[in-house]
């Protein structure tokens, strides 16, 4: 009895198998024709780390947090003359060298997470293979150039919490709008 149901099911299975392969043939194949056609990568792809050097304060947090110690930062202090007479002179850090050794980097993204000034970004760019491992250390110029390939951040989900910056901005506007009415009351 069991054997019979099996044998009748087997014939159906054979036809089904033929159907699956034929249907697959009529559909478009999923192959990415990579060198000819660039792949469409998701926005959060971890291809390479790009640097926005204007935002970097050489605080060294990224270099210290890096588990592989693959970030090299050199900087020097520069004195800015006081903006007004009698004021105090300010010093600021000037970034001389910012390099990431991608032969050591394990693409954990901790440096990007830890950067307090949003100077580091993930880019989906991945075509930076080299023939020699020593050429995998990429300097500031290259890292800055990769900024162009950083995609715009994905839109916030419609039901997500409002970004903190927007909340702060709206509160400021409301405060400014309320302030004159308080004045009105005071005069009346």
């Amino acid at each position, binding site marked *: 009895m069991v054997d019979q149901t099996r044998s009748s099911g087997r014939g159906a299975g054979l036809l089904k198998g033929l159907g699956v392969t034929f249907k697959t043939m009529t559909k478009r*194949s999923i192959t990415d024709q990579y060198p000819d056609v660039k792949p469409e990568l998701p926005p959060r792809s971890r291809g390479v780390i790009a640097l926005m050097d204007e935002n970097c304060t050489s605080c060294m947090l990224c270099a210290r947090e890096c588990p592989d110690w693959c970030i090299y930062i050199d900087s020097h202090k520069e004195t800015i003359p006081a903006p007004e007479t009698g004021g105090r002179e300010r010093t600021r850090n000037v970034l001389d060298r910012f390099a990431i050794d991608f032969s050591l980097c394990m693409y954990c993204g901790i440096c990007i997470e830890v950067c307090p000034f949003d100077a580091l970004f993930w880019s989906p760019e991945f075509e930076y293979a080299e023939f020699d491992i020593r050429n995998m250390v990429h300097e500031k110029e290259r890292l800055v150039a990769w900024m162009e390939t950083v995609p715009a951040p994905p839109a916030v989900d419609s039901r997500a919490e409002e970004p903190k910056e927007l909340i702060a901005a709206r509160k400021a506007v409301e405060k400014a709008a309320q302030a004159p009415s308080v004045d009105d009351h005071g005069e009346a």
Partner: protein
Amino acid sequence: MSTVVEVALHIVVVLAAFLTLPLLVGQMEHKAMAHMQSRVGPMYAGGFHGWAQLIADGVKFAQKEDITPAAADARVYRLAPAVALIPYLVVMVAIPIGPGLIGQDVDAGIFFILAVMGIGVLGTLMAGWASANKYSLIGAVRQASQLLAYELPFVLAAASVAMAAGTLSLVGIVDAWEPWWLLWQLPGAIVFFIAGLAELNRPPFDMPVADAEIIFGPLTEYTGLRFALFLLAEYAGIVVLCLLTSVLFLGGWQGPIFDSWVWTLAKAGVLAFVVIWLRVSYPRLRADQLQRLAWQGLIPVALLQLLLTGVVRVAW
């Protein structure tokens, strides 16, 4: 003098068909199999959708070193690819493509073809024995058992058609063929096609060359051109099987509206696609499944077909 020219012309045409049709089937296999697996297949060789891939493969094979293992039985080992390939070339001569379009009409065409095709398998057995490799030997023994099991239904199914047409000549069979034979000879056609697949070691009957188990069976030790000849023999075998099936069971060049060699080739082309289709769809049969299919499935069906053919012939 004119007969000499005629013979030479026939030989050249058959040789050209022998060298191009297997490549066409191979290319179709590349592309159809790729798309059935949601891939694209060769895309670069030749520029347009990899049409020259098999030519490139051939050039590559020709450049490779021809190695004969030290322990091999050198003469048998070197002869095996030729023994595997040449029978199919000889068979091609006797298969009619269109009315009057045949290399050489043989009176007992079916006998001739079945006998010569049997030799082709001998090449694989020779290769397996002479390679001095245990995997090759296992493959050859599997091949032998498969041959024993499937040659019988193959011949029985062909005999049914010969009986129906009352002639052993392939041209005679096509001339006697009528469309309702499609139904009458259907079981025989299916048995013939499946048994033919098994003789060619096509998946799902590729146990003798099962690459995941025994490397490549009898072909394990072969390199370069000799290996390419074995592959060519496989694809020439597909061409021969598909042409034979369309000539014996599908009416050859008979077709709606007009009769032409185009029909034979079209029918054979569709069958070749089915060969590839089956390869992609089914996993390899185990040894016992293979034997059971032959002895408990195909041979009884072929015998019943013979009975049916005989009864209908006598009753008509």
